[in-house]
């Protein structure tokens, strides 16, 4: 089954996209399950693997957007993120730094929740799925220049949110 192998070959990126869009693991698995079914049942009009995986990324992004409208996203606790983050750091941060980090996490999650979908999808693809502007443009049917503008807007929104809070970067 060709679509099965394409799907499984790109599962890490698909999963990252779902995660970066703010869905929980449980919701995300449901989304990928649906995408998988759509992929294997879909018409075999995707002549190359490249086109097939672009289709998978686009369908996954759209499916996440549908979920957004129904559910609260980025709802995990800031302390949970800081804990996980500290564990992956070489040295455990001091308590005051952890408190600042928790505030930063809360600020970023709030910003992501409010961010327009048209900015959030390219941000997730660029900074978590490691795709470049051209690849994102091919998936989303946009010019690379448009993708770069959206990435710029998203990055400035996130940075501004930190600056507004007066958090020392």
């Amino acid at each position, binding site marked *: 089954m060709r679509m*099965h192998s394409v*799907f*499984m070959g790109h*599962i890490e990126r698909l*999963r*990252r996209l779902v*995660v*970066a869009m*703010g*869905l*929980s*693991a*449980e*919701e*995300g*698995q*449901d989304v*990928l*399950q*649906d995408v*998988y*079914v759509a992929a*294997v049942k879909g018409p075999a009009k995707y002549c190359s693997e490249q086109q097939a995986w672009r289709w998978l990324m686009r369908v996954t992004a759209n499916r996440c957007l549908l979920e957004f409208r*129904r*559910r609260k996203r*980025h709802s*995990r606790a800031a302390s*949970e*993120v800081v804990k*996980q*983050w500290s564990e*992956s750091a070489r040295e455990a941060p001091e308590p005051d730094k952890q408190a600042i*980090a928790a505030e*930063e*996490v809360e*600020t*970023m*999650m709030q910003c*992501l929740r409010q961010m327009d979908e048209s900015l959030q999808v390219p*941000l*997730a693809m660029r*900074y*978590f799925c490691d795709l470049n502007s051209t690849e994102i443009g091919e998936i989303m049917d946009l010019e690379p220049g448009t993708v770069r503008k959206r*990435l*710029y807007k998203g*990055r*400035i*929104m*996130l*940075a*501004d*949110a*930190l*600056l*507004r809070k007066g*958090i020392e*970067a």
Partner: protein
Amino acid sequence: MNEHSCRIVSKEDLVAYADGELPQSESERIAEHIATCPDCKALSQALERSLQVTQAIWRTGEAQWPKAHSFDKVRWNGLRLKEAVAVAAGVLLLLGVGAIWRLLSEPSEPTGKIADEAKIAELRFKIAESGHAAQLLAAAELLSRYPGSKSSVEERYRHIVETYPDTAAAAKAKLKMQ
């Protein structure tokens, strides 16, 4: 958005610099400028930090996923097909045992009303109805485990009550709806 008052380096350039997308000479020029411009320094640090924090949020989400997940199990309305088939098989097994027991407990020489073909057909129909209702109830109960399925589950309970009113499953569904 916060005002970026520097007239030498634009915000676009700072984002491109932060992302390492500028030619080396341009990147060096901006790095030198950032060292002397507080406005650009603040934005540059905020760009870097905000991305670090956002990626930490994403990584935490990723860490909560199970190590392996099989996607090749087709789901039926939120349930794995395997689960639905298992429920159906269980119900059919129970029905089969019930039907055999009834046949065995009937007199070998059919006499009286019970031997009447119409009655047997009615009995069979009722058994089949109970089976269908029980199957639907089991599926609705499984579905109810999934978040966001409340309205769909209630609809199924209502369907059971309305379509199979005289079954045990309908009575249970009624209780669930209360």
